[in-house]
């Protein structure tokens, strides 16, 4: 998967977690927390959805990498580059 594909996957997860949010204006460099109504339980869902959909295990100490779209994509790129986009 390319960075663009991964970004698309994350958007898909976010739209599933927060169906009422408008994600079209999401700024990649800004933390999700400043732009979306997400709390810590919702953040856990990003981790859990990545596990469920892509079998990626993220240790708790590394959750901080998921703060913004840019940092999430950068963190996941080496882990997902071998995967084929469905």
């Amino acid at each position, binding site marked *: 998967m390319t960075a663009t594909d991964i970004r698309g996957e994350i958007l898909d997860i976010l739209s599933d977690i927060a*169906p009422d949010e408008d994600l079209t204006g999401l700024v990649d460099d800004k933390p999700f927390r400043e732009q979306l*109504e997400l*709390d810590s*339980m919702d953040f*856990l869902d990003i981790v859990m959805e990545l*596990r469920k959909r892509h079998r990626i295990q993220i240790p*708790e100490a590394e959750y901080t990498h998921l703060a913004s779209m840019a940092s999430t994509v950068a963190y996941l790129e080496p882990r997902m580059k071998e995967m084929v986009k469905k």
Partner: protein
Amino acid sequence: MPLVYDTIIIGAGLSGLAAGIRLAYYEQRVCILERHYTIGGLNSFYRLRGRDYDVGLHAVTNYGSRGAKKGPLSRLLRQLRMSWDDFALAPQVGSAIAFPSVRLDFDNDIRLLETEVARAFPAQKDNFQRLLGQILDYDDLNQDVFELSARRTLADIISDPLLIEMLLCPLMWYGNAREDDMDWGQFCIMFRALYLEGMGRPHAGIRLILKNLVRRFRALGGELKLRAGVQRILLDGDRAVGVVLDNGQELTAKHVLSSAGIVETLRLCNASPDAALPLAGQLSFVESLSVVDRPPKRLGCDRTIVFFNDSEKFHWHKPADDLCDARTGVICSPNNFAYNPDDGELADNLIRITAIAHFDRWRDLPEDAYRLEKLRWYDRLATSAVRFVPDFRSRVIDTDMFTPTTIRRFTSHENGAIYGAPRKQLDGTTRFQNLYLCGTDQGYLGIVGALVSGVSMANRHCLPV
């Protein structure tokens, strides 16, 4: 090799079902065990002489309107991947706190209560604003701050004792397991739930919510076993490893999540039940149900809920020397919600009255006396209530009554304690590994609260991370 579940959940009430949905959604092998032939626990429903009744639910607190992004209800729906229409809450039309000399109206817009406080307690207007500020700033999960005395904290903010009593009355009624005083944390949570977020009800009652939760749980592959009481929890040293059912069957699991209550769960582990006993709650309820022959509002009973108290001091403890204490009570009409006109009026016109009751005295009554006391207290509750709402008694066409023993039967709580143990276990842990609490004794109360409890304890303890 016996089957190993990822998580076994004890109790198919709201918290157990919500936890089950979360875990099944993330592909766990989950089994919910329910002792009864029906689901819901405290919040259930039944049919009697052709009429549908809810138990527990008067109103769902933590109201949120369709499309709202903030608040516990929308957060909960996101976590369950369910939609607003699965709960379809119609807002209340308006409620009241009625004391002998003063009455405060409130609805789902806090501005009404602000106006009412300013009208009835002009000297407390600014203090009430300070209180609102402190409640908004309160952070849920600090156990030390949580257990501060609400009465003492309120006395530092509000200088008129009557206003304190009036504000406490509905909040204690809808979620206080302690006698006399209330945890400051619980006060703040209940204040938000009732006064800031407000109340609503699905047109079909609690059935709708339960039906949709079960459907969701099963669609995700969850297993629900009814008539499957847990006889004891299987331990390996200080680790829970499964359960034994009443029929002797053993089920093993990596996690056990129990909504049975703190004391009750420890008892299932055969762990020092006597030392644990004083932890059990003392407050139980009776409730009378009166079916009237026309919509309650046409009898002048037009409020969703009236919380009444017949003196300036609000008494919140187990009855001292009688079966019940009807000096304070809750009068509720499921008809008085702003339902969608397409749904029409409810089939039955109902007035429910709740009062505090003494579990042991009800339990110890011989069968004949029990039936007689139900009739006697039906009358006493109505007599007490009609001091605060118009007299509806000549319009009653059917009645029913539930008592603390009914609550005991459906919740398994010691003493029929409606809100469980006075001391909550906010982090949901027990002294045993892999055994966790959810529901009433974890600490979040109300319909949405119970569901949030299930979700957050599942997230915290049972989802492997």
